[in-house]
């Protein structure tokens, strides 16, 4: 009768499947949970789940993704589940529509949807009771079909007539202009925002009372994200019940009535949004909040843990080699109080950021009176008639962190490539350490290459997959440091170990392959490698955007430390205004290949001159609770 693949494995209220102690008995787990249940809520309970466990059998031990959580969703509510990757938040959401995966084992003491216990006719519930919105509409909508067909499919499945008009009405309701034309287009022909709107329209098509949005804005630019959040808020205001899944506390704070914080399959804390964000009781929640980079966090450490800048050996937990969804243990420990560690504050940098006399190496730029490490003048890059970068002037001085911010397609990565010398500019020039850099043959640039390093967003692809960590770092060491003998030992030299220690990693990683590292470890190895040749400038292209917020915090702290101790200049490229504001001394705002505004970071962000900058800043979902 129903979906044969999922249904039999969801023996929802099956008393035998549960431990005797839990059988038929509701054991509240946390105080917050108790409060919520005690809440005088006459509204209909759409979802009610107790002691939900989801396990994925695996050859090397089962993966216990969700470990006994309780969840109630009332009609008209907006509930958010927040957590880092692998916390089990998505699995929880998908379990509610029977889509945890074909091999998922789901157990619970109560599993009621729309007031009824199972077994469920999932195919009717999906789309009919709950609509699901996933992260990236480019891949969440079938790329081979028109969006009209995708929306109409829901209508057909649920036997709703008048499809053509309904598709148009749905597209209109999510504010897609020219809906008739758009309905005939394919996802790739639409901008990210329109795609996401179409995806939401398809989730809403059969009029489900519940909308589950799993990271609905993560892949979007900040301005578009803001629009989508507005759209969701509008639907919520119109009476739609929302279950919002996100890693981003700021996003959650804009929409949710109630927040559940998940970690390692547990709900560690839950409560009304305002309460939870302003007065988090659980240390993990506190760390999460502290780790968010923003204007407010400027000048202080984000992670509670001191980054071993040069001396102390770090106690990095053993990296998890088991695959997701269980993430590598984050560096937090439950008993440490975040306040005590974040208390270490930094002196705010001057806008020039020069710290004379602290340089570990003598470089040309030391002798330069201006301290200018790299200077780009009138940079312009075009492919045929298509101009990607137009008249960009940029200067980075010694010890300075310059932020380059912009949305996707603004040309910021092209600027990085031009500066790095991967591609020649159409016009304009770059001088590096006072000498010409562009216009040279690669052969002539080669001796100076080491002074300019690059860290990219995806460190995994930046490592030769066949090389060990030790060898990867050793490759970057100058020949003077690594002689033939040590090279033969595949980078076990002291220099390599020292570098690893500086980025807070232990020597036990030397023989690992990049695949065996966690995301944070990889980015640290990338930083260690970039530091190896003692560069005067590191170009960081979105170095933290793929990382969880707590890992991001550690990496940002590490980068700040490097500038402080080595005086290395950083050009920091990011789409995240919070990160830039937290870290950078000066900022350039790019749009469509043009720098629309630049200046000291506080000036630009607090007093934006250009309307685009203003729009950008307005769009950022700030944590709406003051700390």
């Amino acid at each position, binding site marked *: 009768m129903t979906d044969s693949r999922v249904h039999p494995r969801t023996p929802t209220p099956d008393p035998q499947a549960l431990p005797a102690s839990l059988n038929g008995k509701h054991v509240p787990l946390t105080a917050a949970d108790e409060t919520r249940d005690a809440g005088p809520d006459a509204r209909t309970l759409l979802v009610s789940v107790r002691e939900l466990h989801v396990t994925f059998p695996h050859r090397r031990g089962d993966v216990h993704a969700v470990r006994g959580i309780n969840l109630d969703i009332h009609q008209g509510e907006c509930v958010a589940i927040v957590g880092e990757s692998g916390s089990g938040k998505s699995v929880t959401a998908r379990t509610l529509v029977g889509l945890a995966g074909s091999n998922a084992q789901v157990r619970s003491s109560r599993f009621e949807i729309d007031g009824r216990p199972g077994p469920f006719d999932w195919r009717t519930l*999906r789309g009919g009771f709950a609509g699901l919105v996933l992260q990236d509409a480019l891949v969440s909508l079938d790329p*081979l079909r028109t969006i009209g067909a995708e929306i109409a499919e*829901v209508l057909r*499945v649920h036997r709703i007539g008048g499809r053509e008009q309904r598709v148009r009405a749905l597209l209109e309701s999510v504010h897609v202009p020219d809906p008739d034309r758009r309905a005939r287009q394919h996802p790739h022909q639409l901008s990210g925002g329109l795609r996401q709107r179409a995806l939401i329209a398809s989730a809403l098509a059969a009029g489900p009372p519940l909308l589950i949005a799993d990271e609905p804005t993560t892949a979007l630019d900040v301005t578009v994200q803001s629009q989508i959040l507005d759209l969701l808020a509008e639907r919520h205001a119109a009476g739609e019940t929302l279950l919002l899944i996100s890693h981003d506390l700021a996003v959650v704070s804009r929409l949710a009535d109630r927040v559940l914080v998940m970690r390692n399959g547990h709900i560690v804390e839950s409560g009304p949004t305002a309460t939870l964000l302003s007065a988090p009781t659980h240390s993990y929640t506190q760390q999460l909040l502290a780790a968010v980079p923003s204007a407010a966090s400027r000048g202080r450490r984000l992670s509670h843990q001191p980054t071993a800048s040069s001396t102390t050996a770090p106690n990095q937990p053993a990296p998890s080699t088991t695959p997701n969804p269980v993430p590598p243990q984050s560096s937090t420990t439950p008993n440490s109080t975040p306040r005590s560690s974040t208390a270490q504050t930094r002196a705010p940098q001057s806008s020039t950021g020069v710290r004379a006399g602290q340089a570990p190496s003598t470089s040309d730029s030391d002798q330069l009176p201006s301290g200018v490490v790299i200077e780009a003048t009138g940079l312009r890059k075009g492919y045929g008639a298509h101009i990607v970068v137009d008249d960009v002037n940029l200067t980075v001085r010694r010890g300075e962190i310059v932020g380059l911010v912009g949305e996707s397609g603004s040309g910021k990565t092209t600027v990085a490539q031009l500066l790095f010398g991967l591609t020649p500019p159409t016009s304009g020039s770059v001088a590096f350490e006072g000498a010409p850099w562009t216009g040279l043959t690669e052969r002539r640039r080669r001796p100076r290459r080491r002074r300019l390093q690059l860290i990219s967003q995806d460190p995994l692809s930046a490592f030769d997959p066949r090389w060990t960590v030790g060898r990867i770092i050793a490759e970057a060491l100058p020949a003077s440091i690594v002689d033939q003998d040590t090279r033969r030992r595949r980078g076990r030299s002291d220099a390599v170990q020292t570098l690893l220690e500086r980025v807070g990693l232990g020597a036990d990683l030397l023989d690992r392959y990049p695949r065996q590292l966690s995301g944070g470890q990889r980015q640290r190895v990338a930083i260690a490698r970039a530091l190896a040749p003692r560069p005067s400038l590191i170009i960081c292209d979105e170095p933290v955007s793929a990382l969880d917020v707590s890992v991001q915090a550690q990496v940002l702290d590490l980068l700040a430390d490097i500038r402080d101790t080595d005086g290395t200049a950083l050009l920091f490229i990011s789409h995240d205004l919070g990160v830039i504001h937290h870290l950078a001394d000066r900022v350039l705002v790019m749009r469509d290949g043009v720098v629309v505004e630049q200046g000291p970071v506080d000036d630009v962000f607090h007093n934006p001159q250009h309307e685009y900058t203003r729009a950008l800043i307005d769009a950022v979902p700030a944590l709406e609770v003051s700390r």
Partner: protein
Amino acid sequence: MIVVRRLLTGLVVLWAAATAAYLALLAAPGSTVDSIIGDGADTPLIRAQIIQEWGLDRPAVVQYLDYLWRAAQGDLGRSYLLQRPVREVIADQIGPTLTLAVAAALLGALLALTLAVTTRRPWARRVSSTFELVVVSTPPFLIGIVLLSIFSFSLGWFPVSGGQGFASLVLPAVTLALPVAGVLTQVLRDGIDRAMDEPFVVTARARGLGERAVLVRHALRHALLPAVTLTGWLFGILLGGAVIIETVFGRPGLGQVTLQAVNSADMPVVLAVVVFSAFVYVVINTLADLSYLLIDPRLRPAPATPTGA
């Protein structure tokens, strides 16, 4: 535009194939005269007559250019052995081969689609995978011989002989279709597996779509893309397989002509088969490229970049 470009490169490929074949045959041992004489009487007088008749005393370059020039006009010359225009020889034999190839391709594709879609359960998948592995790894002529022995000699269900009637097509077509189906099933299943891991499948399921519908409406179309890339290979299997299948089943066709021509060094026919094969290859690949466009809208030349906010 794409088609024009494809056709231009296709012409280059065609020319290269023809030239390569010409050079290869030029390098073949034994002279053209030997080939024409065969095992018949052989005297200087006869040789002189043959050389004069076929213009073999001209320099190789002249003969090559003459050949190219005439080939460009559709004149593929005359068969040394069969004494008929090559175009006629090929035209006469193309029907049976085409019938066989098309039947085998359709049957193979149908079988592959059915298997890939229906064998989703672990045990069925296992059975099907074993079947695929076996048919892909077995020499096609062995399949043919076994089928022939069982269904024709022993059971008498199908005629043993020749290229007449539908019944005589069944066994050869099945023989040729089995390896095709084996490979296509693997590719389709792999494509379906990959597609089923994509987020849009989750979205589709979340709409309440049944598993079969997800498979057929969404995943299958994605799985067709890698399958289409196999057309070049498919073409090789079909044309190459035809030589063997036609031999085993005593069917007439291009394969037989090719074999005979190679064996007797009947240069004009060999060259014509090569040129013809290259031509079909170019056409099929152009069609494959077009079908890409049909299947995947992302590859269509974009009239507009992403629009809207």
